[in-house]
């Protein structure tokens, strides 16, 4: 569904991502992991259209999407969340989600109904009329996800959507993603530091280090790969 081929991006001589290639199969959940500064978010931003890659191609559902603007990428069917959450602080929780829902339904009341559904699903129903600025961090993370889901994406990009959550909160949101993946065939690509979430969700893991893909495959295999252990997981006891 998503094919990244030979992706490279530099920032003033810093090679953030070099010749990275990986694929996300339709209906799959893929985890993108790597130490800080490995180029995960750069990969994400290139896919989401924040900037064009220096080299390489990105194809979604068979069509090239590199060089498109973020709104065009979103319209093509890719929703994303931000690592540093960006709620519309002055708008209510429901209105935040309505903005996302308006992409596919031009009618405001239809968008509101759909947004309310998503809001319930993410457990934000009780906070519908509160300004987003009043939410706690876990709720803001949920709002990020709810907004992105409201655009009815075929592929969801999650940039550390679980970081900073308590284990139980993390499990809750993992359950929501599993359910969406199972019932609606939502494809997910997630950047995550929380190994608990990655291992629980991902069917495949891609490991980035210094901007290069050093390993990819089934979670159980990847976490035993010596190269991965050395660069990233060395000190960590993997679940």
């Amino acid at each position, binding site marked *: 569904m998503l094919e990244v081929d030979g992706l490279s991006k530099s920032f003033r001589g810093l090679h953030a991502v070099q010749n990275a290639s990986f694929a996300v199969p339709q209906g799959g959940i893929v985890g993108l992991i790597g130490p800080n500064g490995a180029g995960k978010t750069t990969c994400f931003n290139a896919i989401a259209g924040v900037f064009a890659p220096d080299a390489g191609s990105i194809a979604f559902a068979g069509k090239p999407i590199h060089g498109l603007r973020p709104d065009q990428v979103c319209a093509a069917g890719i929703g994303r969340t931000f690592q540093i959450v960006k709620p519309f602080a002055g708008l209510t929780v429901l209105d935040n989600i309505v*903005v996302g829902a308006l992409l596919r339904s031009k009618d405001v009341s239809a968008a509101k109904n759909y947004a309310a559904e998503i809001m319930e699903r993410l457990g934000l129903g009780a906070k519908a009329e509160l300004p987003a600025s009043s939410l706690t961090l876990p709720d803001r993370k949920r709002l990020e996800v709810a907004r992105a889901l409201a655009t009815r994406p075929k592929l969801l990009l999650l940039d550390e959507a679980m970081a900073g959550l308590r284990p139980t909160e993390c499990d809750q949101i993992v359950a929501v993603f599993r359910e969406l993946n199972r019932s609606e065939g939502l494809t997910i690509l997630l950047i995550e530091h929380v190994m608990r979430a990655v291992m629980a969700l991902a069917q495949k893991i891609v490991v980035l280090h210094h901007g290069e893909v050093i390993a990819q495959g089934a979670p159980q295999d990847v976490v035993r790969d010596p190269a991965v252990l050395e660069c990233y997981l060395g000190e960590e006891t993997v679940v």
Partner: protein
Amino acid sequence: MIARLLEGVPRRGLAMLAALLAFLLVFPAFASGYLVSLGFLILYFAYVGQAWNIMMGFAGQLSLGHSLYVGLGAYAAAALYVHFGLSPWIGLFASIALCALAGAAIGFLAFRFGVAGVYFAILTIAFAEFARIGFDHFAWVRGSSGLFLPVANYAENDLWNLRGSPRMFYYLMLGMAAGAFVLCHALLRSRVGYYWRAIRESPEAAQALGVNLFRYRMIAVVLSAAMTSLAGVVFAFYYNNLFPEQIFHVSRSIELILGPIIGGIGTLVGPLVGALLLTGLAEGLGELLLALGVDVPGVKQVFYGVCLLLVVMFLPDGVWPPLARALGLNRKG
């Protein structure tokens, strides 16, 4: 359509609005000529404040050069009237077109090349200043010596040519202010209104949700410019004289944005409340000082400054949001 507009509006707010409208409608019947002129001025600032608010309050684009649109609108309609005897009701189409074009040009430059924030504000000032200096040397509209509309004593109001009493202008401005209010209310509830507010709060997040930033920012600028141009048309025919040095002056831009800032940026009622407070109180203060025998130039400006300072310090969201809560209405009124 109407049922849809009223949906979700608190009953109390609706009743208050109806009462306010009724009051404004009968006001000229018992008010003196001076008070009617003052009422006109308040409605004028309520209207341009509303128009400016679309750009800043809704879409988050700070314009400090709205005098450009007032001036262009005024000059276009006035020149067509003076030179060709065209009614302002026809001339206003030229005003709207000219201002929409000017707004689109500024918007295109800014949004295509990533000019944002204070730099965008400076760009809007630059265009207004450019017009001020340009019109000073624009012979067709008499340059710096000013364009004057023919004035005579009219036995009755001539609405078609906008020649008549302050009372006529008062009702015209009331219609425009009420129309702008309803339009903004409808816009806020529409898709474009949601997108504007999303852009205002976080452009990156809005874009990630599929919002075409360029398109929606352009809509805001062009619409705001077009609405402001109509205020310019009325301004020209009310005052009957236009000087580039005055109408395009940056102080005029500042003057017209103080209302919505003091009233509450991004709110519907804010521009109205702000216009009432600033114009009403400044004029009242002027009268009071005159009665006391104090005739110091610049007092009005000092008053503006103090007002702004107090609001910034104590009511950072403007007067309306806390007032709305006190009246038992929701934030947006």
